[in-house]
């Protein structure tokens, strides 16, 4: 059970969505940690994780800022980040371009993907 060892940190302020991804990821064997606030997210990231699912629109600190901090910190910059949000689109646009340029591994629009799609993407990355 190699997968069981992998941990995913979900940074998401919408509780229903957060619950859904948490359930799905746990059900396929990930260790799942969640945080719903931008500032708290920074503290949690410092404790380490295998992958981060990052929402963009959040209170206190938005996803782009968090992504910048993750990627500028030598200790955390190797952690893969999938931006999982409901703004922008998956074809090239400002938001996706920004995220990718900041070092995101992928940019997924939540409404366009099922939880299975997200799991598949995570498995491709880690």
């Amino acid at each position, binding site marked *: 059970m190699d997968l069981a060892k992998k941990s995913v940190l979900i940074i998401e302020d*919408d509780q*229903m*969505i957060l619950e*859904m*991804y948490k*359930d*799905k990821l746990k*059900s396929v064997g990930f260790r799942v940690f969640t945080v719903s606030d931008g500032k708290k997210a920074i503290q949690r990231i410092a404790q380490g994780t295998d992958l981060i699912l990052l929402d963009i629109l959040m209170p206190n600190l938005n996803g782009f800022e968090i992504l910048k901090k993750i990627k500028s910190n030598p200790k955390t910059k190797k952690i893969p980040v999938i931006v999982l949000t*409901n*703004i922008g*689109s*998956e*074809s*090239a*646009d*400002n938001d996706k*371009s920004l995220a990718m340029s900041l070092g995101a591994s992928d940019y997924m*629009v*939540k*409404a*366009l993907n*099922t*939880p*299975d799609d997200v799991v598949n993407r995570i498995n491709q990355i880690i």
Partner: protein
Amino acid sequence: MPFINHKNYFVLENKTRPLSKMEHFDLAKQSNLLYRVSNSLLRIDDPEKLLQKAVDETKNVMDAFTVSIALYNQANHMLRVELINRDDGEDKPLYTKEFAIGEGVAGLAAKLRKIVAVPDIRESSLFINKNRKNNFGGIISVPMIIAGELIGVLNISSKEPRIFTESEAEFLTVLSTIIAAAIKNNHLYRKLDNQVKGLSRLFGVTSVTSQQTKNTISSIVNSLPALLESEKAHLLLLNNETQTLEFYASSASSDKFEKLPDMKLKNKSVSCTVLKTEKPILINNIDKSDLINKKFRKLFAIKKQISVPVMGKNDCLGVIHIINKISADFTTEDLKLASIVATRIAAKIENAELIDKLDEKNRLLDKIVSHASDGIIVFDQDGKLIVYNKYLENLFKLKAGKVLGLSFAKLIGMLDIEEKDKIQLIETIKPLLAQKDTNVRDIHIKKNDEGVSWLRVSCSHILDEDGNIEKTIFLVQDISADKELLQAKNDFISTSTHELRTPITTIKGYLSMMRNGDVGELSSRQLDYLNKAYSATERLVNLAEDFLSILKIGDNRIEFQPKSFELNELVREAIGSLKMKAQSKKILMKFNPQIDYLYCYADREKTSKIIENLLDNAIKYSNENGRIYISSGKDLHQNTRIDIRDNGVGISQKNQRQVFDKFTRINNPLSIKAGGTGLGLFIVKNLVERQGGHIFLKSRLGIGSTFSFTLPTTKRKD
């Protein structure tokens, strides 16, 4: 031609006599001389020099003490001494300066029109200047006559008394005629020259505005008397409203027009006659004419008169009277000249009327331009600003007077906006200056004293016959308010669409997990219900996506990341992602690539969206058990081309044109079932064309449709 003795003077009578051999010889010599004199005299333009030359030549030939010329003045029937050449250099006239016909030797010669010779003036009763008696011997006066007209008298005197021979007299007859011809010729030439100059002065006045017209016409009337050697000229113009003739201009300021009787057209005056007949009238003997009534005769001291109509293009506009020819009668030549001037005056009047009308039009145009609710900027072919209206003065707080004549770049430089916006403005607009078609650009600028403004600038050109740019016209509109409204609308749609995605995410996520059996096995009915709920959710997702796409297309915000990629692979992916949907309607999709590896240069994700969208449509509008054939290859221009053919419901000829329009959904039995916003093909067309491709449709109602699109194979060279 013998001299006839009249006591103490001789008159040469015109009688022929045989010439001696010697005289023949002399004559031959003389004719040579005369030819030379004649030639040199005719070449002289200046009348004073002409007389000088005539006198000098005569003096040389005749070896005289004094030679003088007196010219006949028709005005007072007097002879006037014009020039004297005396050996002793005294330049005072031999006689009194002016003398009557018949007075003295010269006067007698003029009166008789014959040569008069006096061997010793001191003995003659004809000598009138007694003071000079001691200076003279013989005198011979030769009348200068040409074509029967007396020009003057040529006088030759010797210091001592002498006898003038008949052959001398004959020679002088010829010489005087030559001089007369030269003088007459010179006079005519000068008169003609003056007339030409006068005419060209009149005609030289061009481009007259209506305000100047009266002055110009007055100056023409003022110059008429000099031109026609007459006392004065009057111009009367017809007042169409009152049907009366009114004084318009006169060369004689003393003529008081306000006292004139009403010049109704009914009367038989010369003015009305000319106006009615449109023909000139010449009156040299006023007593014999009843056309000029006594009041006028007295008032204007009329003795002689010519009257010519002022002929406009269509009708007679008025009458010119030229009054009292000085020292002669009016001639038909005068009539011709006056008519030419009258035509000129008519042209001036009609021009002025035309200019008035043009002025009125111009003023109207100026008003329209000035009060237009858009900014209007016009540059001429030299790139100089020639129109800048009020709207712009208000928009930029910059007066027209400060910018007219400036170049485009200098105008931008004058604007009170941020420097980087100036650069942006120049970079955006400058390319349009050279493009002959009309272009529209939206530009946002930040004014230094205010906030941001959005300007819509449209640039068009007036081209000349050769297609070169003659004028460049900019229309400038402040669309800040429109932009704000549009932005607010877009923001709302954008925000609500994103907000819509959040609940959909949860619904779709849980439905998909349940459908996959994540929370236990499902009955076939449960699965059926979940599938239906899931596909409804998908439609909701697509709807939101379409809205966002439309917003981006409208704002030109879709970004393309073109690269070279293999297209057949992409087609297979798209077919794969729609396989389930096709199978649910038992539709078969068949892909038939013409080339194994087909590369195109485009945005891969956008292209995927294009293909998926077209396939999705083909499935939607096909009946169960339908067939969809996809082929890929290259067109005649080596562009990549994809055809997607179905045997579905098809689209009628009438509807084919609008399928690519926004919000179009063709009414057919399947479209209601198919759902959708009607935005799909609009978005697809935009995605294709923005990447430099084309999209086509071939369809027959009830038979099926083929959608084809092309994409560039390689990067465009631009």
